[in-house]
């Protein structure tokens, strides 16, 4: 069916109008989720084009990493494999998703410059593209997660709904961070470098491999003020049968609200300019 479209573009009419236009962009991106999905899956497919296993390399390379690090840390920390392996496996998989959504966020607008400079596609389409691409990757890792949970028997004690809620909260947070770095990377080309090193550092500051220990006050400080710890714990905790602290949910919800408010404002104020940054 042929639908008539209507496009109205105007000069600046005050901040309120800018926010209304930014909201219009967000709303217009909802019907474009299908396009974002097509672009995202095309990204994944083209990355592994020509290889025999194709995107299942994602699964395989992750499986090797999980096995290797799982055994190593079990030996190093003298903790049973039963405890270490699921912890490390879930840690690496979900950390990978969190950090890649943020790191790849740097390229969201830069890579879309062709489409942004000659179509009226909503800019949020490309934010969803980055997010969906990493969800496709996560789906490939699902087999590892399920395998580990079944092998070590955690499927009996896990709290799946709570873990899903944690995943949703985490996605809500990484998506605003991803948008924020997307805008700033378009304007300042140093940002991707900064983001990459911050994420690398954060990997060691976050209990991805090592067990969090709340006894030392220094350690407690590092954990409580590390947003990534709360993201990871809200997903991994329930899957391993633990109940994340109430504090974790408070941090995640407050951070999502403040983060989205600030980032959306940044988007509203820079929206017209982003295409010229590229």
């Amino acid at each position, binding site marked *: 069916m*042929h*639908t*008539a*479209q*209507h*496009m*109205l*573009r*105007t*000069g*600046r009419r005050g901040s309120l109008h800018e926010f209304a236009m930014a909201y219009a962009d967000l709303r217009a991106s909802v019907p474009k989720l*299908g*396009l974002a999905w*097509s*672009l995202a899956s*095309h990204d994944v497919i*083209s990355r592994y*084009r*020509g290889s025999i296993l194709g995107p299942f390399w994602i699964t395989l390379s992750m499986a090797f990493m999980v096995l290797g690090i799982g055994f190593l840390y079990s030996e190093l920390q003298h903790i049973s494999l039963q405890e270490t392996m699921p912890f490390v496996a879930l840690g690496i998989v979900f950390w990978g998703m969190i950090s890649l959504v943020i790191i790849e966020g740097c390229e969201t607008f830069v890579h879309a410059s*062709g*489409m*942004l*400079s*000659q*179509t*009226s*596609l909503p800019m949020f389409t490309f934010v969803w593209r980055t997010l969906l691409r990493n969800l496709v990757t996560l789906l490939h890792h699902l087999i590892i997660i399920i395998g580990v949970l079944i092998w070590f028997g955690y499927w009996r004690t896990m709290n799946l709904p709570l873990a899903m809620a944690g995943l949703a909260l985490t996605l809500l947070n990484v998506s605003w961070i991803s948008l924020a770095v997307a805008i700033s990377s378009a*304007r*300042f*080309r*140093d*940002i991707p470098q*900064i983001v990459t090193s911050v994420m690398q550092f954060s990997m060691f500051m976050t209990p991805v491999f090592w067990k969090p220990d709340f006894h030392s006050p220094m350690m407690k400080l590092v954990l409580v003020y590390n947003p990534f710890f709360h993201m990871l714990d809200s997903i991994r905790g329930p899957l391993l049968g633990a109940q994340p602290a109430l504090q974790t949910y408070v941090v995640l919800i407050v951070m999502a609200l403040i983060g989205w408010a600030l980032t959306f404002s940044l988007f509203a104020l820079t*929206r*017209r*300019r982003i*295409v*010229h*940054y590229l």
Partner: protein
Amino acid sequence: MKAPPVSITVKDLTLRFPVYGVDAKSLKKHLARVAIGGRLSSAHHGSAEVTAISGLSMTLKAGDRLGLIGHNGSGKTTLLRALSGAYEPDEGQIEVKGRIAPLLDLSLGIDPSATGLENIRLRGRIAGLTTKEIDAKMDEIGKFTGLGPFLAMPLKTYSAGMAARLAFAVATAVDADVLLMDEWIAVGDADFQKIAHQRLLSLVERAGILVLASHDMDLIRLYCNKVMRMDGGVASPVTSIKDLDQLLAQA
């Protein structure tokens, strides 16, 4: 079914480009400037701005085929991009009623490592077609390219002319009310030129409005019934194609 009204209304459009130099993109320079900002004059601060279009007004209705002429850098492509919705006006207003198809860059959304068929799908999705619509048009597009079995091969194995055929076929497969074209129609060999011309004519007939930027006056005469000349971002009034010679003489 009555066709929906198609129109383009532009009022006092002014478009400025901030020029972010290589310097301006570095955070260090920016921070350094903020730190010592007080002392530096505004000449050192802020990026230069280029006014690409100033005070442009025009109205187009269904059936109008506007040819945009003017020297390089006179603002033709910028106007097309503004009409496509990519560039936001700094002042004034653009209103477009109807489905817009910007055919500004043939290589938009084309992935060289993907096959011809995959590229047709991808490009079609970007142009706003649903997967079903693309499936329905696939045979027709494939036939039009004349590439046959090559459609299953990666685009990087194509010659430039073959790639252009594919891109042209997909780009023109859309049902559009407003067609925006930059000068790139001359693609492919003589055979292809002929069928491409026919396809463009039928597309132009189906579309309500065509805006075509070109340096080729024969092309303008062939496709357009109205013409507008741009010079340094300032546009002449929209006049009939009959006055093209007069308009050129003023240059």
